Each structure stands twice: as C-alpha cells, then as structure tokens.
C-alpha cells in the first residue's frame, strides 16, 4: 500500500526542489502538457477508434455502435457509455479481475467529461422514441501507464468519437435493422477537453507524469467545451486545494485545453 520507499521519498524531494526553481523533472514548464500523438481508424472491427500517446501513457480506444433499448424516462435520447480498463501489460501493479475504485473513477470521470459537455447530440440518435435508439459504447484500453490516464483516455475517446461512422438503422417488424452502406458522421455539438492538474506543495502542474503522480498532494481534472466553459470537475487525492488554487486551475484548464482542442479538431 502506501509504504513509501526511500527512493520514492528522494524523488519527491527532488521534484519539490526543482519546482521551487520553476522546473519539472522532465524539463517541462509547469503549465506544459506532454506531447500528444493521435492515430485514428486503427481498428477496422470498431466503428471508430484511436491510439493516443500522452508522453509515455498510451491508450487504444474503440467505439462500438449498435441499436439498444433507451433508458427508462429518456426514450428521446441515444445511449452513450464510456468504459476504461488498465490492461495488465500497462503496468507491473495493474490488477486482473473486476475494476477497482481507481479504474471505476477513471471511467466515470472520462464519461462525465464527455457527457456533460453534450459533445454528441444524443437526441439525433433515436430510431424510434421510447422503443429503440442508437448506442455508442466507447471502450478505453490503457496499454502503458505513465501518469494522467484521465486526459489520455479522454483524448482517445474524443478522437475515436470524432472519427466514428454511425450506421443507419430502421425498425422492421419492431426490430432495428441496419441499412447497408448508409453511414454518417456523429452529430457533434462541441469538443470537450480534459485537463488534469496536480498540486505538489504549493505548485500547480499540468499533466503530471507518473513520478509526479506518485508524490502529488491532490489533483483535479477540469473539462471545458469549445466555448471555453467549464463542464465537469473532479478533485482527487488525499489532500485539498485552496479557493485561489481552484481558480488558477480553471484558468489553466481553459488556456491549456484550448491548444489541445486544436489538435483534436484536426483529426475530425
């Protein structure tokens, strides 16, 4: 569990010393995310897919699409579900078996970031109201862990969604049937960008790598939309933030997010 080794303690001291001088362990500026590489259309069995590297954190994401019954009370909307799994190849400590609380939080934060911006217009994914709708299932498989899975999964999910092709369905005999050859781009309203920041001591850094992740005091993930409004927040970690720090984080999320959004827009 939390038994910190001496090496971890020394690394924390080193990271803190550097931060006092305004530097990070890998040479980045405090508000600088790692480089992001995005490849799309890599899985032909998926209706949309992406492979994203955020530094050495790496995710493969697929979007599967099929007709489904709508959730009760929201018969006028399609279904959007986003999951995440940390594959055991990704990290020596990854666990097999049902997802633990960290993985569940990861999936739910990524899901909520996209859902709350209203990225996909779910009202356009209705085959027949209250009977049959289109479901988008976005599955994130983390294949290498180097900190900040939240943003890597979020970018991969957004890229896979932006490039997915939605089959057309019709009800025949009360059953939804796919119309061959008719596919369309997804109804996209806005592009969500998740930016995760850590507080280490009194310093706020953007996109912590795994050394920074291991020694942070607290973290926050803020998702903004194309209008640069704030649509989802999630604080984590075993300490807190001051009010001023939270305001600073929101500003960083908007400024950093704006640059990353351009890169995501380019894949569509």
């Amino acid at each position, binding site marked *: 569990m939390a038994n910190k080794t001496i090496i971890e303690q020394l690394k924390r001291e080193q990271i803190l010393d550097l931060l006092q001088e305004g530097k990070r362990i890998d040479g980045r500026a405090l508000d600088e995310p790692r480089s992001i590489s995005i490849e799309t259309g890599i899985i032909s069995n998926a209706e949309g897919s992406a492979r994203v590297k955020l530094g050495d954190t790496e995710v493969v994401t697929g979007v599967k699409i099929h007709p489904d019954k709508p959730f009760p009370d929201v018969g006028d909307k399609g279904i959007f579900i986003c999951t995440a799994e940390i594959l055991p190849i990704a990290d020596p400590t990854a666990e097999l078996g049902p997802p633990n609380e960290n993985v569940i939080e990861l999936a*739910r934060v990524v899901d909520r970031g996209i859902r*709350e911006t*209203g990225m996909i217009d779910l009202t356009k994914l209705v085959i027949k109201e209250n009977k049959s709708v289109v479901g988008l299932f976005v599955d994130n498989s983390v294949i290498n862990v180097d900190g900040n899975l939240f943003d890597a999964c979020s970018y991969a999910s957004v890229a896979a969604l932006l490039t997915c092709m939605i089959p057309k369905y019709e009800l025949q005999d009360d059953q939804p049937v796919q119309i061959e050859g008719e596919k369309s781009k997804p109804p996209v309203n806005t592009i969500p960008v998740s930016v995760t920041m850590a507080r280490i001591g009194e310093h706020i850094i953007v996109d912590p790598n795994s050394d920074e992740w291991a020694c942070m005091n607290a973290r926050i993930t803020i998702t903004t939309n194309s209008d640069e409004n704030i649509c989802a927040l999630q604080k984590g970690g075993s300490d807190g933030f001051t009010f001023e720090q939270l305001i600073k984080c929101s500003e960083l999320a908007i400024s950093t997010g704006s640059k990353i959004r351009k890169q995501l827009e380019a894949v569509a």
Partner: protein
Amino acid sequence: MGRKTDITLLDEKGIRCDGRKIDQTRNITIKAGILKNADGSAYIEFGGNKIIAGVYGPRDIHPKHLADSDTGVLRCRYHMQPFSVPERKNPAPSRREIEISKVIKESLQPAVILDDFPRTAIDLYLEVLQADGGSRCAAIDAASVALADAGIPMRDMVSACAAGKVENTIVLDVNNEEDQAGQADMPVALMPHLEKITLVQLDGMLTPDEYKKCLETAIIGCKQVYEIQRSALKAKYENGG
C-alpha cells in the same frame, strides 16, 4: 445535461420551487451518537436525505497485506438501501456508489490524523436510508460528525454543501428537481478552519465567472453546515454522551 420541466424553478422574486431563497440551504438536522454498537455515529436529515454514518476503529486490518506499517488507513463505503430511491435499487454496490465512496474518502482524509494508528483501519460506513439531491454532501457532513464522535483525532471538521446553477442564477444547495432540470450542480467539501477544499465535482456548464461564484456560494453553505455539525457534537457531549 438537464431535462425539461414544467415547474417554475425560480420566480421573479428569487424564490425557488421549494420556497427557498437562492442563498438558503434546505433544512438540516444532525444527531451524534445514535448507534449502540458503532464506535462513533451520526444521523443526518438534509432536505429529503436521511443518512446514517457509523465508524468502527481504529481496528486491525484483514487481510493483513492491506495494512500500512507507517500509518492508519481510512476506508469508506457509501451504500444506498434498496428502498432509498423511487425505483428499488439492486443491493449490490453500483459503480456510482463505488466512485462516491472514493471521493468521500478523499474529502475526509485531509482532516483525519491517521499517523497515530499504524497497521489499523478506520472504517466509515454511510448508509443512505432515503436519497435526495446532494446525498454525497450530506453523507460527508454526517461522516465528519461520526468520526469526531468516535474520538478519531482530526485536524478540522469537513463540511460539505453543493451550489449550482438554476435559471442562469447561482444558487445554494441544489435540490432534486433543480438537479434534474438544472444547469449545473457542484458539490463542495471544506475544512472550515484550514480553508481547504477537499471535494469538488461538477456536472453541468459554467462560465469562468459562474464557476467562481458557484465555489464562493458553496463555501458559504459549507460554513453554515459546520455550525450545525458543531451543535450536534456539543449536544451529544452536553447530554453526557
């Protein structure tokens, strides 16, 4: 993303659908020490929420390999009774409950002094008898009182309250109707003396200005909750609890 509603959520006089003003919380009552067996406990009614918090520990951890030789461990389970919601809830823990358990734990960890209890756990159980909007904040409020009631050393209380946006206005303590129809809901937890925010989440959409206003509003609510938590503990100890 909210749903449409026929209710007037905010009238021209600034009165909300349940008669409250925009800066007013729902009714809150907290009672400390309500369970016989638990080492500490509290019961909260916060609007329509009815939640019991119970604490056991510090106590030995099984299996042992989960223990930490340097410090104690805070464990937390947020759990809804099948009858606590309009549609009967399956008794198995949902993914939502597991996530809420984690964010509640992380909102309380900064306040709980665990170093004095190496190799042990403090187990915090939050049992939702009736759920309404804002149940995670209410659970944190009861939890904090239950931990204090159990004699766990704490740096500060943790007081939680949400703020949100209704009809483009920032309001305190969003209720269920407002949340369903509403534009934004932001639960916040605060250590009132240390002025540290230990929980913040958001569903909805806020401009940067609204975000700031929303945080400020929630913090005011947290401080109101803190007074009620204090009174609950005082009442318990004055009654020789």
